[in-house]
């Protein structure tokens, strides 16, 4: 492995305060590696969550130096200083240490009617979506959501409104609405058009887009739905 190992101070938010640990990391090691080192060699009671370790599952989302992100995709060597603060995701209840309950996130996710409801459930042939079709092009940039909750934690509107759907749920709703095979619509549009919980609460600050570990332009999804609702006279 290229480069030299370096000692980092990792301050983990645990209960009421931050607990400091000193760990030695190679340049390509991640924040998740640092947490594992702490748990295995310093304090086995440290609680955090992870599964795939390659940025596919979204389970290890935490706040690193105040910014939500995936612990397995963040390298301390790229943070620019030898100390880092690691805290649980904002806007979600803490279960223990860095482990949060995703219940509020998925409660909003369910409100957006994420399930696919086919127009022809009994159809024998598979409905093909060509990659160069309108929906194919839209979905290519939006379908990679791993429901990690990073956008939910980054969203400034969630700070003041517990009713807001959040960017991931809105993005999912857009994918369902734009899908030509989808049959559901009116109930989903009604939820999106809610005064306190719908898309109109978004302040277009791009925080969700900036933080999304999959690079999804979530603000664009919200803006598309705002325009769609306005065009349908649902203002």
């Amino acid at each position: 492995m290229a480069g030299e190992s370096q000692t980092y101070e990792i301050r983990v938010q645990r209960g009421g305060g931050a607990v400091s640990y000193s760990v030695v990391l190679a340049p390509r090691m991640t924040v998740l590696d640092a947490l594992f080192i702490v748990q295995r060699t310093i304090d086995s009671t440290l609680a955090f969550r992870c599964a795939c370790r390659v940025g596919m599952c979204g389970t290890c989302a935490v706040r690193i130096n105040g910014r939500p992100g995936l612990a397995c995709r963040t390298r301390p060597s790229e943070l620019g200083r030898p100390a880092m603060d690691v805290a649980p995701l904002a806007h979600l209840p803490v279960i223990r240490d860095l482990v949060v309950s995703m219940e509020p996130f998925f409660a909003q996710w369910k409100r957006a009617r994420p399930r696919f409801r086919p127009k022809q459930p009994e159809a024998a042939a598979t409905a093909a979506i060509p990659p160069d079709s309108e929906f194919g092009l839209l979905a290519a940039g939006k379908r990679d959501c791993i429901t990690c909750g990073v956008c939910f934690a980054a969203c400034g509107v969630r700070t003041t409104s517990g009713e807001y759907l959040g960017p991931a749920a809105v993005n999912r709703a857009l994918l369902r609405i734009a899908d030509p095979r989808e049959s559901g619509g009116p109930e989903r549009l009604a939820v999106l058009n809610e005064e306190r919980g719908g898309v109109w609460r978004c302040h277009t600050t791009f925080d969700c887009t900036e933080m999304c570990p999959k690079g999804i332009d979530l603000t664009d999804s919200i803006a598309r739905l705002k325009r769609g609702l306005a065009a349908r006279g649902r203002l």
Partner: protein
Amino acid sequence: MIPLQRWTGIALLIYLLLHIRTIHTLSEGPQAFDRALAVFRHPLFKLGEVALLATVIAHAANGLTLTLFDLGYGHRARRRIRMVAAVAGGALFLAGGVPLFLGGVMGR
């Protein structure tokens, strides 16, 4: 990020209410209106005028960029667009704020 539009909007609403209250003193006679205007000649209120100008410019510049983004334009160039809006807003503020400050607060 701070929702700039919300806070500048609330500040402008407060100003608007104060403005309506002042205009309302006209119904109480010319002397009452003159008394109300005399209060606003205080340097502290003149400083408030400079702050009001900054708030109006910030609200307008941010509002224009938000409208652009909500219409689906400039998402990828958002940092550059915000920078242009900030520089243009800053220039406007200097053009209007400096004479206001010198004339109203410093009395020149």
